[in-house]
């Protein structure tokens, strides 16, 4: 008896999405967080509102990064706490497949959603319409990469109660290139200088993590579950 992998992948995806929508608060949390943080900045800078425009790409990207990180924390923790992670690991479906589907599902409900609402935030921050395309593309690539990196951290800190601080400590250094190139792509799209280079690099990072991260995540889970 062997397991039908694509059917199993579909089942996991369905489960993750259903869980996401069962707890809409968890689903919306990164989004709300994103919106809040981006509105906080104008508030905090009320004295120097003219700076806002120049800072917009940075603010956008830092909030996206933190929002994404915040929500990935529980990617495996929930399943580990109630014992369902063990069942997943023992289901006969390769751990790599499980990990890929779970991370993609997380990206769909957090990263992709964030990309979709980003024009709203961008408008509030005074980013011109012309730059929206590049901004959204770069955010899509960036949040996906982040989901992969974050999932490594989440797998490493699965057993820890107060792991979220450690998770950021682990993931943020790895994510910093993302931030640099992502913000610079957005910035260049705003000023109209070519952002192709930064986008290529973001895409390279995205492809690279998409291939290698599942291996690392699966290995990390095997280690922490033992």
């Amino acid at each position, binding site marked *: 008896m062997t397991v039908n992998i694509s059917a199993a992948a579909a089942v996991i995806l369905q489960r993750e999405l259903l869980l996401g929508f069962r707890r809409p608060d968890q689903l919306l949390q990164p989004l709300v967080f994103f919106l809040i943080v981006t509105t906080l900045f104008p508030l905090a800078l009320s004295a120097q509102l003219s700076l806002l425009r120049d800072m917009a790409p940075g603010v956008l990207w830092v909030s996206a990064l933190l929002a994404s990180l915040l929500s990935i924390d529980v990617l495996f923790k929930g399943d580990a706490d109630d014992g369902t992670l063990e069942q997943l690991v023992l289901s006969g479906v390769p751990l790599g497949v499980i990990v890929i589907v779970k991370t993609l599902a997380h990206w769909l409900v957090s990263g992709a959603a964030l990309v979709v609402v980003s024009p709203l935030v961008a408008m509030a921050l005074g980013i011109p319409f012309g730059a929206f395309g590049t901004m959204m593309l770069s955010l899509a690539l960036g949040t996906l990469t982040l989901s992969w990196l974050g999932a490594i951290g989440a797998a490493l800190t699965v057993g820890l109660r107060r792991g979220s601080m450690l998770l950021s400590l682990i993931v943020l250094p790895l994510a910093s290139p993302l931030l640099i190139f992502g913000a610079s792509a957005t910035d*260049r799209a705003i000023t109209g*200088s*070519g952002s192709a280079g930064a986008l*290529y*690099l973001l895409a*390279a990072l995205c*492809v690279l993590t998409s291939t290698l991260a599942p291996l690392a995540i699966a290995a990390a889970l095997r280690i922490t579950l033992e």
Partner: protein
Amino acid sequence: MTPRRKRLYVVLAILGGVGAAVALATMASRENIMFYFDPSQVIAGKAPPAKRFRIGGMVVKGSVTRASGDLTVHFVLTDFAHEVPVEYTGVLPDLFREGQGIIAHGTLRGDGEFVADQVLAKHDEKYMPPEVAASLKRSAAARPASEGKGLE
């Protein structure tokens, strides 16, 4: 699927992914990613207007002029093809001198002059005692073309 077959697929996927990433990175390397421009690019109009960027180049010999009253300095940057005038107000690093490579942060003014708010001196990887530098300089002066970048 046997385990070995599976492993083969995994290896192939990894190779493909890494290959694609490398290809994308190579494409990226053909573009300007950092906000860094040399004088030729600035002259060609590639630099963004009204936006801070970094410019790098060599300080042209004899171009440094100081206004008497304040700390404002004017000099010209070159990449041996084109030149850009620069204005800076503030304390210059010790290593700032004519013929030295520098990086300046600032914006391009409408009249084509670069207004720097920070000037950092670059140092290349060459180290030598002063006597050697002096003798090298003498022999370089004997030859017509300038080749050593940081050595003039």
